[in-house]
C-alpha cells in the first residue's frame, strides 16, 4: 500500500476512510499480485473484513480503536493465531489450528490492527531465502526471479509489494533484517526480551525475537511500541517498560558517535559495501561522529550461531512426533511412527539442522561444540561491549549481497548460511538491530544498511534509522 501505517490509522481514526475500505484495498492488491509473489500462505478475507467493520463501529461510537486502527498487517506463519492454521511452512503442522493467540497478535489486535493473512517462510524459520517452504518459494517483488531473503521472506515481500503496510517476522540470526534488506523495506529485531515470545513457534529460544517489517522507520517504531512490553507468560520477557521509540525517529544523530564495523563491510559485495560507506558519510553529514571500528570476534559469530541455533532447534522440534497434533504417519509401534512422521513431515534443511544440533549436544561432543559455541557467544558480546565504550551506535551491511536468484544457493547450504554473517552478532548478544533500505546495487536491486545499538538502546537505534532513512537514495521500483 502506498500510504504508511501511521497515515492509514490517522485516516481511519478521523473517519476520513473506513477500515473496511483500507482492508478491501489491501485484499484487492493481494488478490491481484500474490498469485505471482506468493507472500501469503493463508489470506483471511472474511475475518479481516469482519474485524474492519468492528473497527469502524468502534470509531463510529466515538471510541479510539488504537494507534494501528484499521491497519492491515501480515503475520509470519510461525506466530500462533487462535483457530487459524499456523504451519511454519511445514508439512508436519499441516492443518494445525492453535487454540490461542501469540501475545504479539493480541497486542496488535488491541491496537486496532487487522490481520489479513499468514505469510510464507522458510520451514520453522530455517533458511535465508524462503525457498525451504512446503508451499513453494516467495518471489522478490523487485525481481520475480530472485528470492526475497528469509526466513521472514513472505512478510518482507508482502510489505515490499504494497500488499500491507506492516508485517511481523521473527529474527533468530537475521530472519527479519536480511529479507527486509533484500526486499527494500525496514526490518527491526528488538533487544532479546523486549517482545514476548509467547506464541512464537520456537526455533532457537535463546536467539528468537519477534519484530516489525514496515515501509518506513516510523511505522516500525509504532509497531514495536505496540508489541513490546513485559509478558508474564514469557519468563525471558524483560520487566522494564518498553522504550519510547516513536519520538526517537526524528531525533537526529548530531554529536552521536557511530562506528562503521570493518567486519560488517569487508567481504560484502562491492555494490553493497559502496552503499554502506555512502550511508556512513551521510550520517557524518548529518552531524554524527563516524569512525571505523574492528570487532574481530564477529568472524566467529556465524560458526557459533550454526551450533547454538541447531542445538536448541533439535530440542524444540522434538515435540513434532505425530502423537498429539499435526501430521501422523502410521507405523506398527510408537517409535516407528515417530520416525515415519518426522521423515515425511520435515524438509531437508530442517532435518539437516536437527542432526547438526543433536550432534552438537551429544555426550562426548557437547564441550567441543555446544559449550565452545557458548564461549564464543560470550566473546561476541565482549566485542560489542568494548565497541560501545567508544560508540553510541554501529553501522554495517545487513546482508553480504543483494537478492540472489531463486535456486542459486539451494544446493549449497554453506553459501546460504553465509547470508546471515552480518546479522548473527546482534542475535548472539541479544542486542537490537535494524535494517534500513539505502538505495540500490547492481541491477537496481535494493541494498539494506544495518544499524546496531546496545541492549535496550532502541531509542538510539531508531534515531540512527531515522537519519539513514532521511539520507537514503531511492531504493528502486517494485516490478508490477
Amino acid at each position, binding site marked *: 500500500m502506498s500510504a504508511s501505517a501511521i497515515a492509514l490509522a490517522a485516516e481511519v481514526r478521523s473517519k476520513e476512510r473506513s477500515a473496511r475500505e483500507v482492508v478491501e484495498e489491501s485484499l484487492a492488491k493481494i488478490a491481484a499480485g500474490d498469485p505471482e509473489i506468493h507472500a501469503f500462505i493463508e489470506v483471511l478475507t472474511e475475518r479481516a473484513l469482519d474485524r474492519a467493520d468492528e473497527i469502524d463501529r468502534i470509531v463510529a461510537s466515538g471510541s479510539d480503536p488504537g494507534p494501528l486502527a484499521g491497519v492491515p498487517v501480515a503475520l509470519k506463519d*510461525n*506466530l*500462533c493465531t487462535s483457530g487459524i492454521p*499456523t504451519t*511454519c511452512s511445514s508439512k508436519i*503442522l499441516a492443518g*494445525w489450528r*492453535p*487454540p*490461542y493467540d*501469540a501475545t504479539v497478535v493480541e497486542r496488535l489486535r488491541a491496537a486496532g490492527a487487522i490481520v489479513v493473512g499468514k505469510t510464507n517462510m522458510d520451514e520453522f524459520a530455517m533458511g535465508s531465502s524462503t525457498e525451504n517452504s512446503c508451499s513453494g518459494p516467495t518471489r522478490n517483488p523487485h525481481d520475480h526471479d530472485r528470492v526475497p531473503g528469509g526466513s521472514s521472506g513472505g512478510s518482507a515481500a508482502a510489505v515490499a509489494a504494497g500488499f500491507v503496510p506492516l508485517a511481523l517476522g521473527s529474527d533468530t540470526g537475521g530472519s527479519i533484517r536480511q529479507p527486509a534488506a533484500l526486499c527494500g523495506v525496514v526490518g527491526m529485531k528488538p533487544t532479546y526480551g523486549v517482545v514476548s*515470545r*509467547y*506464541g*512464537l*513457534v*520456537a526455533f*532457537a*529460544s*535463546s536467539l528468537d525475537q519477534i519484530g516489525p517489517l514496515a515501509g518506513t522507520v516510523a511505522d516500525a517504531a509504532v509497531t514495536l511500541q505496540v508489541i513490546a512490553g513485559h509478558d*508474564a*507468560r*514469557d*519468563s*525471558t520477557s524483560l520487566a522494564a517498560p518498553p522504550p519510547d521509540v516513536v519520538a526517537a525517529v526524528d531525533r537526529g544523530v548530531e554529536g552521536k558517535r557511530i562506528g562503521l564495523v570493518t567486519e560488517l563491510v569487508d567481504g560484502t559485495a562491492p555494490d553493497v559495501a559502496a552503499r554502506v560507506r555512502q550511508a556512513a558519510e551521510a550520517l557524518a553529514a548529518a552531524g554524527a561522529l563516524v569512525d571505523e571500528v574492528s570487532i574481530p570476534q564477529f568472524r566467529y559469530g556465524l560458526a557459533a550461531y550454526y551450533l547454538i541455533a541447531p*542445538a*536448541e532447534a*533439535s*530440542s524444540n522440534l*522434538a*515435540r*513434532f*512426533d505425530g*502423537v*498429539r*497434533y499435526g501430521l501422523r504417519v502410521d507405523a506398527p509401534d*510408537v*517409535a516407528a511412527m*515417530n520416525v515415519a512422521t518426522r521423515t515425511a513431515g520435515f524438509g531437508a534443511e530442517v532435518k539437516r539442522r536437527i542432526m547438526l544440533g*543433536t550432534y552438537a*549436544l*551429544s*555426550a562426548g561432543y*557437547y564441550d567441543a561444540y*555446544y559449550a565452545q559455541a557458548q564461549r564464543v557467544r560470550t566473546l561476541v558480546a565482549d566485542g560489542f561491549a568494548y565497541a560501545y565504550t567508544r560508540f553510541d551506535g554501529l553501522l554495517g551491511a545487513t546482508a553480504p549481497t543483494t537478492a540472489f536468484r531463486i535456486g542459486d544457493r539451494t544446493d549449497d547450504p554453506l553459501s546460504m548460511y553465509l547470508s546471515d554473517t552480518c546479522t548473527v552478532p546482534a542475535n548472539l548478544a541479544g542486542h537490537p538491530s535494524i535494517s534500513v533500505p539505502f538505495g540500490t546495487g547492481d541491477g537496481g536491486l535494493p541494498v539494506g544498511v544495518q544499524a546496531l545499538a546496545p541492549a535496550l538502546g532502541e531509542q538510539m537505534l531508531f534515531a540512527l534509522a531515522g537519519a539513514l532513512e532521511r539520507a537514503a537514495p531511492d531504493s528502486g521500483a517494485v516490478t508490477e
Partner: protein
Amino acid sequence: MVIGLEVHCELATRTKLFCGCPNAFGDEPNTNVCPVCLGLPGALPVLNRQAVELAMRIGLALQCEIAPSSFHRKNYFYPDMPKDFQISQYDAPINKGGRLELPDGSVVGIERAHIEEDTGKTTHVGGSGRIGGADYALVDYNRAGVPLVEIVSAPDIGSAAQARAYAGELRAILVATGASDGRMEEGSMRVDANVSVRRVGEGLGTRCEIKNLNSMRSLIRAIGFEADRQVALLEAGDRVVQETRHWDEGEGRTLSMRSKEEANDYRYFPEPDLVGLAPDGRWQAEVAASLGSLPAERRAGLVGLLGGDPSPAQVDQIRSVVASGLDDLVTAASGLGAPAPLALARTANEVAADAERAGGLDPGAFAKLLLLEAGGELSATQAKDVLAELLIHGGEPTEIAKAMGLESMDSGSLAGAVAQVIDAYPAEWEKFVSGDDKVAGFLTGHVMRATANKANGKLVAAELARLRSGSN
C-alpha cells in the same frame, strides 16, 4: 549391601510447575491441561513460586544448602512427555548436600533434592496390555507438568530395614512440611533403589537400579531379592551388570527392563526458556520461619504428652500418627482433657484408617468422645462406632450415640449379664477362678455378645475380677 534411594515426590501445589492448570489427582483424563503443559508449539514455561517454596521446605528440613540453581532439558522421545524433553535441574540443583537422621539415630546423607516436572500417564489397552503387546495406548496429560522434587540419598543405607526407615522418615518430613501428601499408592511418592553388594572391606560393587516400588513392602522385598541375586551371581563367579531392573510384586523378583535406556543420550543443555533461580536470603528465611516442627520434634512432643516411657506399641503409634500428619489431632484432644494414650491409640488406629476424612475431624468432638469412653459411658466398641460416624458426617458425640441407640448399661444389668454368662459356662468360670486369665477374654466376649456390645469391656472385666476375688 549398599543402598542409595532416589525418591520422587509430587509437590502439593495448587497448580502445575510451569502453568496455571490444577495439580489434582483422579480427575477426568486430559481435563487439567493447557497449551503449556501439553507442550503446544509456541507455549512457554513459567516457574511456579509455590513449587519453589515447597522444594525449599524439603531442603531446609533435610539440612541442605539452598543454592543458586538452573533448569536443563533432558531430551528423549516418549509419548507421555508432551515436549519430548523433560525440564529438570541438572548440574545446579536448588538443594545440595543435606542429611536425614532416622528414628534409630543413624544418619543418611542427602546428595541433592532438585525440582523437575512429571510426565503424563500412558495406559496400554487391548492385546496383552503390556507395552509391546497392546493394541493401542491412551495418554492422560493431567499429570504432565506436575511439580516433583527428586531426593537423592548418598549410598549410606546398609539394609532393607534401614531403607524402609529412611523412606518412612522422609515421608514423615514431606507430610510434616506440607510439601507433599507422600501417598505411595497414588504415586505421589515414588522410590527407586540403587542396590549393590560388596565383601566387607572392599570398594563399591556394581549397582542396579530398581524401579516400580509402589509400597514400603515392595521396597523391602525388592531390596532383599536384589541383594540375594547379586550375591548369588558373584558367588557363582559371574559379575553384576549395571542396569535398570523392574520389580514384579506378583512374582516377587526383579527383572531386567527390556529398555534402550542405557543407550539413551539425554543431551542435557540449559533450558533457554527459563531464567536462573536463586532464592535470596530473605525468601529463604521466610520459608524457614514457616517450616513448623519436624517429625523428630513432633514425636518427642507426643512422648512428653504421654508422660513416662512409651510402650513399644505406643512408639509405633507415635511414629505412625506423625508420619500421617495426625499428631496435631492427638495434641489437641489431649489439650481438651482427653487421656493422651487413648487419644493416641484411637488416632493411630481408627482415625488413620480413614485417611481421606481424618483431616476433617473436629478435635473438640473427638476429645469429647474420648472422654465418654474413658468415663465408661461408652464401651470401646461403641466409641469406635460413634467415631466412624463422626468421621463421615461429623456431629456431637453424645447425640450420635443416642441416635445410634448406644448407651452404656447400668451396673445392675451389666452384673446380671455377667452372672448369666457364668451360669452358662461353668467349666470356663472354674478355670478363670483357678487363675487362668486366658479365659477372661472368652467370658468377656460372651457378655459382649449377650448385650449386643452395649456393655463396656473394661467394666465387664472389672466385674469378672470382682466376682473371682469374692469366690476365692
